[in-house]
């Protein structure tokens, strides 16, 4: 009985003979699976959380800068720097009348005394004598398009005779240093995201090398039994990919929680400028992509590491 079985066992094990892969759980079982025991899930979770926070910061800063730019791009401010109140008022009214007829101006509105007092309250206090410290009259201009230096020069020439104390500046010019700082922070966030990606790849590289070392006997056996580099690499890819997906999900949850918490705190500031730094649905979708990209980096790193090590074998 046993003999007849023995006769049939080899003949019946039909070999496909090709380079088909070990699939599914059977393949990944060649490497001992110790979920959450290794460093990969934890490292990826922390890296993804930090990346999500850095990316959210970068995107929020980008949105804030864009919002402020579009708001300020078509704005200009006319200051009437005149110590005498009557002359200041005259020049302000004359400027309003002249600028209203300028083709580039959509609207011109004098900033009221009440608004001025409110703006200066933090510095001068409540009920300060306005004439003790002469405050320029301000006219807020809305232009039909982004303010250009040529338009501003044209307005200056227009007011030169009737309002010699008038100074005209584009509103965006006031915030140029702020935009510059925001731009620097955006680059910093971008650099952080790249560095975190590289650190994740380095961590996976180390873990894959460690796994290769501890499973060297298994790898050599599979290799000598005719396993291809691709087959063996896939075993590790699956293992690392699963760990990275697990860590990436946890990291995304952690990162999003931190971003939401910070968003609430910034919203509590009630600052008009900060309000422009909210995240759009596309931004949230981009943040959700962070762990996906993390998993892809981990899998690619594991593959390159294992293939590199295998190439040193015959």
């Amino acid at each position, binding site marked *: 009985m046993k003999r007849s079985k*023995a*006769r049939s066992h*080899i003949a*019946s*094990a039909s070999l496909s003979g090709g380079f*088909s892969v070990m699939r599914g759980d059977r393949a990944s079982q060649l490497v*001992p699976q110790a979920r959450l025991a290794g460093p990969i899930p934890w490292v990826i979770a922390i890296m993804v959380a930090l990346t999500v926070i850095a990316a959210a910061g970068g995107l929020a800063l980008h949105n804030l800068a864009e919002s402020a730019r579009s708001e300020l791009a078509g704005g200009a401010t006319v200051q009437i720097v005149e110590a005498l109140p009557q002359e200041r008022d005259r020049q302000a009214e004359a400027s309003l009348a002249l600028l209203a007829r300028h083709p580039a101006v959509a609207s011109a509105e004098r900033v009221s005394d009440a608004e001025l007092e409110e703006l200066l309250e933090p510095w001068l206090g409540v009920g300060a004598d306005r004439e003790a410290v002469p405050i320029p009259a301000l006219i807020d201009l809305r232009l039909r398009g982004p303010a250009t230096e040529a338009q501003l020069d044209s307005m200056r020439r227009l007011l030169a005779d009737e309002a010699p104390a008038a100074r005209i500046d584009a509103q965006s010019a006031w915030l140029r240093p702020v935009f510059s700082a925001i731009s620097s922070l955006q680059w910093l966030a971008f650099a952080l995201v790249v560095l975190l990606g590289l650190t994740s790849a380095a961590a996976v590289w180390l873990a894959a090398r460690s796994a290769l070392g501890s499973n060297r006997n298994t790898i050599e056996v599979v290799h000598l039994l*005719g396993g291809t580099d691709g087959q063996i690499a896939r075993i590790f890819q699956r293992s690392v990919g699963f760990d990275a997906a697990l860590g990436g999900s946890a990291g995304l949850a952690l990162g999003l929680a931190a971003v939401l918490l910070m968003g609430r705190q910034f919203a509590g500031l009630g600052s008009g400028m900060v309000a422009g730094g909210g995240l759009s649905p596309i931004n949230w979708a981009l943040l959700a992509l962070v762990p996906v990209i993390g998993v892809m980096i981990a899998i690619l790193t594991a593959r390159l590491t294992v293939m590199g090590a295998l190439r040193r074998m*015959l």
Partner: protein
Amino acid sequence: MQPMNPRTGETITFDNVGLRYGTDREVLSDVSFTLYPGSFYFLTGASGAGKTSLLKLLYLAQRPSRGVISMFGTDVITLPRSRLPALRRRLGVVFQDFRLVPHLSAFDNIALPLRVSGVREADLARPVADMLAWVGLGSRADARPATLSGGEQQRVAIARAVIGRPDMLVADEPTGNVDPEMALKLLRLFEALNRLGTTVVVATHDVHLLRKVPDSLIMRLDKGRLSDPTGALRYPPRRPTGEHDGSLAPDGGTS
């Protein structure tokens, strides 16, 4: 004209093969032979004679430092690395230290070559179970190597080597850890495989084993050199290949 493998029509030849590790002296020198297709060889020699090194060349774990090796009509020396796995799948290897995968069961260890070759799970359960039964480990299918005795591990290693019905079986001291009865049984399994056309090379220093296979040829290594005074190993005489019934029964009979 070189003899042909009855199953594949191809031969295995070594021509002036030398092997050295690093800058040390050669562990194998001027080794030349042709493995008679479908024949049974014993590789003998004292410890350190180069038996394991020669086997490593045979099972493609190593390339020689010089010389030419041709296996199944393929020049192994110039063969691109990417094509070696296909060649390795035509070999069965019993390692001296068994080299079982420690966290896999006996069943999964034996199934490994079939899985590597892409055999479907549904198609491998029965042959693996039959092979387990054949080596007397039918009840230990789920046992991990660490829970098996040395002899049991050796039987799993042998079962793994022959399950894919290789064109050539290379075994390094395959009966070293089993009792005489099991050693004979395993030898009969090798013979049965040999009758199906598989070239068998068994490295051993057990002289009693040599007498158990009367038709076998002896390859003797001495300090890295192959003893072949009659030239029979290099230029083997042609002989009829015989008819086979496809049986792996140990005595060659049908059941």
